[in-house]
Every structure is written in C-alpha cells, then in structure tokens.
C-alpha cells in the first residue's frame, strides 16, 4: 500500500473511551474471574467513559477472549465486525488499522477492542517458560525470555555492558507504579534490590520480567468526527512490520522491522520521534525497551542504554516511558494497558501519574513483528 493511500486513514479514528480492570484488586481477590467476565466489565466501563450505549457497538475485536462469548453475554447483535486475535501485542496496530478502515468506509461506527487474560483459561505466549519450538525444548529453553536474554548479552558485547540500563528501566517502571493505585506491584524498587533479585535466564533477573496476571482492557473507537466533547484521542498513525525469525532472537535486535514500522507510522502521522512527548513500550522483558528506543529512532544504535541511565525515560525525563508502570509493574495486558495509559495522559486525566507535557504519544513493540501507533489529543 502506498504512503498516500495510508495517509487517508490518519486521524479518521479516535479513541473515545478506555477502561482497565483494577489489576491490584483482582490479584488480592485471587484472580478468579473468567476472561469473558473480565472483558464485559471492562467494556461496560469503557462505554461509560466514552458516553456510549452498548447498543451502539457494531464492531468487536477480541484478544485472548472470544468475541462471540463477549457479545452473547452483553446481548450485542447485528455486529458488522467480529474478530478474534489470539493475544494483544503484535495485533494491536492491525486492530487499529482494521477499525479505521471500517470506520472510514462506514461499515461500522462504534468498535470495541477488548483484551482479557485470566489464569482460569489457558492462553499462549504468556511469557512463562514453555516450549515454543520442538527444537528448543530439547535444550530446555524457556521461551521468548531466553532469547531476550541472549540478545541483551550480545547487545552488551557490541555496545558495552547494559545491566544498569535494564535496572533503570525496571526501577523507572516501578517508580511510576508506586503512584498507580491499580498497579499490581507498588513497592518501591532500588538498584540494590534489583541486583539482589535472582537470576532467571541469565543475564535477565526477576525484575526484568513482565508479570502474569489477570485483567482486561477495553477501548472504544469511533470516527473522529463522531466523538463529541474534547475527550477523544486521535489515532494519527499506525504500522507494523514482520521479519520472521527461526527463534525469538534477531541478530539486529529487531532493528529492521522496528525501523520499517516507525518510518510508516511516523510518516502517516506527520510527526517524528522528536515530536513524541510520552512513549509506551511493550516491555515483556526490559531489554525490549532498549531495542524499541533505537529501532523507532528515539536514539541512535547503541545509545539507548546511556539514554535510559541518564534518567530520560523517567516521568520527569525528556521522554516519560511506561507511565503507569509497564508490564513489569502495573499489569501484563500485552500492550493494551500501555495504550490505555497513553490515552489518559493525552487527556490530562492520569491523576497522580500525569506527566507535565503530553500532547503526542507513541505506543511501540519490538519483536519479530514490530509495530505501534501515534496518538494525540
């Protein structure tokens, strides 16, 4: 698709409402709700946030939960778009693009994207150790984290030891989470505490890992022209790019797919990385933040560790990142909670988490499929 035809979708869609579970409360309750129940509760709250009735929903994109089950429980009917994605992550940019296309062609008017994760149901790619390929299992490899560990060891060899950059990411995430009442992990984390934590897939430590928890996130997407008031957040650009890998590791730390997605996403939005005030980065493991910052052009290659160590990603830095605590401290909703936090920041409704300047936000993921979106008020 040419850049010209893609640009037609820039700004067509707006996020009219968002909602997330109270992840902390769910953990206290013992994570006993089904994905469908978690999803329907989140959708109800997102509809209230968007000042929209359930009967107006005519599109439902469900991640890690069944769209039909959710629709049945909510009594939705005459849906013009239902789509099931196995999880969030790489499917977020395509979900936004699909939504924008449906809205642009008047095939749908009110689309809900919902993700729900529950330990009551099995789901894949949880970040927990597991055999991702038969030829990894014989080595007792522990899934994508093992490859993140290998990549960050190689990264340190090429660009210098980055262990204190990983600790800076984990500590910055946790500092944000201490201000976030719904975050799962809110106890402050120090550098000593980080380095005292156990090694899992060395060089990764416990605090480099996302959590596995229960919860849901829902967003309501409508045509920008249909969103009343001043609370809509415009979806300015989106893109994704896949460079398949045999295993989850890439010799260039996913640089080529990140760069490709970033070029399209920023061109579509008509902004550059320099215009971005806040970043939300899919931190399945802390090294992903370094890879995304470089791949999406926020810093040069090999410069992310210094950028992070200098405090630039802290809430008072030049690029506040993972403002709600990220996947390591707030909740692992496979990117969707990061998107929700970006929306709240842009609306100036993030409460104690609010950063001083939040006009343009970027959500990004660095993986074999990289992608993201640009949002503004």
């Amino acid at each position: 698709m040419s850049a010209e035809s893609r640009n037609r979708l820039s700004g067509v869609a707006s996020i009219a409402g968002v909602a997330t579970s109270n992840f902390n409360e769910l953990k206290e309750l013992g994570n006993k709700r089904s994905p469908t129940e978690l999803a329907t509760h989140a959708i109800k709250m997102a509809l209230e946030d968007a000042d929209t009735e359930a009967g107006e929903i005519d599109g439902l994109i469900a991640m890690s939960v069944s769209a039909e089950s959710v629709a049945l429980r909510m009594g939705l009917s005459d849906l013009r778009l239902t789509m099931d994605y196995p999880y969030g992550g790489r499917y977020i940019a395509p979900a936004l693009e699909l939504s924008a296309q449906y809205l642009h062609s008047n095939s749908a008017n009110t689309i809900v994207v919902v993700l729900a994760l529950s330990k009551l149901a099995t789901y894949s790619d949880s970040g927990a150790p597991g055999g991702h390929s038969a030829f990894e299992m014989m080595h007792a490899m522990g899934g994508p984290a093992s490859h993140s560990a290998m990549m960050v060891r190689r990264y340190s060899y090429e660009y210098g030891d980055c262990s204190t950059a990983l600790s800076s990411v984990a500590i910055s995430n946790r500092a944000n989470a201490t201000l976030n009442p719904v975050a799962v992990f809110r106890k402050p984390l120090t550098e000593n505490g980080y380095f005292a934590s156990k090694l899992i897939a060395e060089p990764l430590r416990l605090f480099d890992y996302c959590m596995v928890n229960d919860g849901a996130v829902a967003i309501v997407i409508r045509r920008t022209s249909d969103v009343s008031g001043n609370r809509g957040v415009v979806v300015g650009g989106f893109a994704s790019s896949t460079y398949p890998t045999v295993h989850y590791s890439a010799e260039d730390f996913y640089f080529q797919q990140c760069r490709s997605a970033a070029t399209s996403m920023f061109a579509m939005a008509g902004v550059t990385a320099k215009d971005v005030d806040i970043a939300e980065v899919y931190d399945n493991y802390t090294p992903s933040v370094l890879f995304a910052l470089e791949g999406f052009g926020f810093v040069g290659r090999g410069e992310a560790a210094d950028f992070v160590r200098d405090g630039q990603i802290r809430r008072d830095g030049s690029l506040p990142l993972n403002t709600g605590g990220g996947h390591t401290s707030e909740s692992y909703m496979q990117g969707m909670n990061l998107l929700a936090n970006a929306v709240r920041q842009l609306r100036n409704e993030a409460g104690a988490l609010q950063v001083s300047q939040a006009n343009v936000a970027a959500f990004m993921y660095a993986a074999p499929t990289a992608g993201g979106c640009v949002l503004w008020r």
Partner: protein
Amino acid sequence: MALNETDTAELDISKQFLPQTESWAEPLWSGLHRGELHIQKCEPCGSFVYPPVEETCPQCTAAYSWHRASGTGRLWSWVTFHRSYYPGYPLASPYTVLMVEIEEGVRMLGSLDADTSVEELQCDMTMKFKPVRLSDDVHIPGFVLLGKERSRLET
C-alpha cells in the same frame, strides 16, 4: 535400577524432550550418536537449513538432502538457566544454551558441553560441535570451546 525402569526413563526423555521427527530427520539423530552434525541442504540453490524441516525447499521445490556440517561455528550469544523448568530434564541447573552461527551460515541452538565452563565464554569465540548426552540413547546438539575437546582427550 532394573532394566525395564531404565527403558522407561529413556523412552520418557526421548518422548518428552525430543522433537518427534524420527521418520524424516533420522540423519540428524543418528549423526548425533556418532558425534556429528548433519543438516539439510538444498542442492540446486545451495542453502542450508536447521532446525530440519519436513517440507521441500520453498525456492526451488526440491527435496533437501542431508549434509555433514563442518561442526565449527561462531558463538553469537548464550543464556544460563538457574533452575530447571521441566521436571525430568536430565541436565542439572544451572545449564547453558548457546546460539552458534555455524560455518554453513545457519544459526543454531546447542547445549554447552560440560568440558567448557560458562566463565570461559565470550561472544564471537570459535566453538566446536559436540553432542550433549541426555541419556545413553539420547544426544542433543551441543558445543564445546574449540580446543577444549582436544585437551580433554589428551589428559
């Protein structure tokens, strides 16, 4: 241990941890028992493949043939696991898995042979293929630091 118990343990290790590819990847597994690495090659286009695939080459639709690899490669990186996540896995933790780019241009995983200590490893070192024994009947791809294997034979 009685013989039948050993047999059961062997069977479990093979079934639980090895890809079930005997019918079409036999050269890989039999090569491992002889200390050799056999990988697939597409003769018309010259490309090598590992892990093995059951399909034909997507470029020229030819069936892959098996080819003995040189067994030498460059260490790209490695990861050390500090506990075992798989009940019954024969290697004690901590254990180390390497990513090695072999001379044929393929990146492959291998377990670290016990003759090399993880402290000796550095990225870009030259590694030599040496299968790691999970049991009498089960060997998996592995690597040792070049020179280590020889010194062990000498002592």
